[in-house]
């Protein structure tokens, strides 16, 4: 009798503990995955937001826009960062799985910057010249006013949104097989900074230790550097939006987080990191 009372008491305590734990406020977690171009920006956003919202955990990982979109479709991330718009085949998958078209949130603007070695005398290129260089039609710097030396190409992996965007806008075909693919724009910048005859592309936020190449639409146009002014005015020819995608309209903590990103405070971070605000 005494034992059974003890047992009942222990059981009650365990039950109360279980119920107590069940009702304990769980830390609110938002997972963000996708574009490597956006990873520094997304980490900065998360860092600042978590400081003022200590009960929220924002977990940011890269992997590329394609990887992020796959994660959004298979449900393993709440927010997908993408440096390109959703393809129709990806939207079809969202329709099939979630009966939804997905929610697209433009959160920053970026000019795809062309990186050259600081020792390279070339300082401006047309879109066509860039396309010819990255497709392998032009292989010597001499053809674009540089030294008589072979051009070394550095680019992104095909899971990257930057890779896709640059291919669609500039290369307009297949990349040259000699183009060395690197994991992230930082790696491209690093490679170009060590190679006098190297050329690479990537997000502006990563560009340190290299020379930015001016870009012009065609021979007759004026060449521009990717700056907030030229991007805002639509003068810099390789400009794109950076997006956040969600399966459905954001609610709760995710909504608060996205509202903050689109607020003046969130957009200030965009400028600090080296991208350009949407507002």
């Amino acid at each position, binding site marked *: 009798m005494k034992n059974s009372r003890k047992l009942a008491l222990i059981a009650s305590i365990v039950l109360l503990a279980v119920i107590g734990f069940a009702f304990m406020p769980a830390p609110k977690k938002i997972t963000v995955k996708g574009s490597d171009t956006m990873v520094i920006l997304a980490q900065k956003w998360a860092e600042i937001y978590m400081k003022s919202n200590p009960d929220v955990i924002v977990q940011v990982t890269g992997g590329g826009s394609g990887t992020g979109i796959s994660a959004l*479709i*298979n*449900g*393993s991330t709440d927010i997908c960062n993408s440096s390109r718009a959703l393809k*129709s085949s990806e939207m079809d998958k969202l*329709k*099939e*799985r*979630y*009966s*939804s*078209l997905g*929610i697209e949130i433009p959160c920053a603007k970026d000019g795809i910057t062309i990186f050259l070695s600081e020792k390279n005398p070339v300082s401006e290129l047309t879109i066509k010249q860039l396309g010819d260089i990255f497709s392998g039609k032009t292989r010597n710097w001499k053809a674009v006013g540089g030294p008589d030396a072979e051009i070394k190409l550095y680019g992104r992996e095909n899971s990257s949104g930057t890779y896709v965007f640059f291919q669609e806008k500039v290369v307009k*075909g*297949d990349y040259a097989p000699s183009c060395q693919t690197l994991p992230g724009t930082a790696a491209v910048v690093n490679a170009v900074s060590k190679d006098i005859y190297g050329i690479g592309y990537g997000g502006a936020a990563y560009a340190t230790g290299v020379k930015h190449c001016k870009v012009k639409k065609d021979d007759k146009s004026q060449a521009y550097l990717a700056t907030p002014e030229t991007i805002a005015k639509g003068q810099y020819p390789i400009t794109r939006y950076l997006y956040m995608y969600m*399966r*459905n*309209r954001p609610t709760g903590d995710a909504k608060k987080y996205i509202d903050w990103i689109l607020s003046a405070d969130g957009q200030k971070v965009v400028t600090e990191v080296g991208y350009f605000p949407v507002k």
Partner: protein
Amino acid sequence: MKKFTQFMMIGGLVLPLLFLAMTLQAQMKVQNDLDTVKQKVSTLNDKVAGVEERLATAESDLAKLTKIKLSGYIQAQWVNYEASNVYPGNYFMVRRARIKFTYEPINGIVFVLQPDFQPGNITIKDAYARANDPWLKTFSLWVGKFNRPNYEVEFSSSSREVPERSRVIRAIYPDERAIGAKLEVTPPKFPLKFQLAVFNGNDGIATPDANGNLVVLQNIDYDNYKDLMARLTYDFKLGKWGGLTIGAHGYYGRIKANSLTALNSDYTYKSTLENLGKSVPKQWFGVEAQFYADVLGGLSIKGEYITGVNSIPGITTSASAVTSTNVIKKDTLWMTTTLTKTSNSTPAITKSFSGWYVYLTKNIGKRNQVAVRYDWYNPNTKLAADQIGTAKYDASKTTKDPNPVKTFAGNVATVTQTDNVYTSKLNSGTSDIPYGTWTFAYSYYFTDNIKFMIAYEMPMNKKVGTVGANGNGNVVSAYTVNGVTSAFDYSNVIKQNVLTVRMQVKF
């Protein structure tokens, strides 16, 4: 002093020699060490070169492997049939077990092979090559066996909200896939899709062979007629309301009549065909719409309406038999030889049909999905409910030879005659009954790879036929289960609901 001088001289000579010898020895040791280091570096270089070479080979092999993609899914389920003509009435089964091999040797050229490994029945679902245009990135050419261009046909069975496709789609596009070629136009900057395909036209359709047996031909056409199919869709973005896709598709084909008689949809005589190879039409048109909205999560309403004419080929068999009779009449032996030519024919029939379906799907969170579908299929719109079972065509007749050949030799008469027996008839019946079907389904995505589904399908036949004084209808279908013969009387709604509990694993 002299000795000291001699000692010093010898010492002076020996010591430098000794120093020289030691230096030389040290130099030789350094040289030896250097040689050893050089040898080791050389060996290491060789090893690194070997590793690099192997790495390059491995990378090359790996690059080839990345061009091959594997995906697939298995659907295992337990089904329970309410209909009394199904025995066993419940069982476990593997509904689909598919592996899709996709090989893209160069950008834009894709080979796809997808077998279905159902126990006891391995079939090839997809086997096609696709070439995408590398310049405009707009056109793609498909050749082989692939889905017919239709919304519900192309919607993957692994993603569908309910276990099976609508009755109308299963009727006009049996087995979903067809062998042929397709041109697909998808402009990258324009939310439009156009598909134009040409098919053999008999895929999944049972057609009669020379003996009148119905067979489903594989990998060969039934006739020389080719069927054309086209589909056009356009996507609208409706801002905060979501998105809408509208589209239409058409089918223009013919099938060998295999009969000299063609009937109208109401079983009346339509025409006499010149030969068995003449054709009857398969032509229909459909409109579709899919609406997506975000109402506390994804919500979609999807529907399609299809109407047109579909033909069923006839069955024609012929046989000849010779009979002889000897009869003595008034001292004369009459020897009669009769050649009887029998021709059995089921006329070809062209039926007007219509069908439609509507899905309402709601996703709750990222794991739950509920769906309701209603679909309607009327396989013969030209027959009213009370005409089914009554409408029939019968042109059977027997003709005796009007001029038999008679020869006489003494008191022996020889008679040779040819008689013709024609049977040509077709009755309306169960194949003309309209059906409306409610389907309710709930799916739970345990992970993105594992899905559980419970679905209840309620097919309801339209009450058809005429009811006699005894209270029974004239459209019946007999069946025997466990030695007991019964019949469905379609003047009532037959109980034939189906419960499906399914688990799907996708990779």
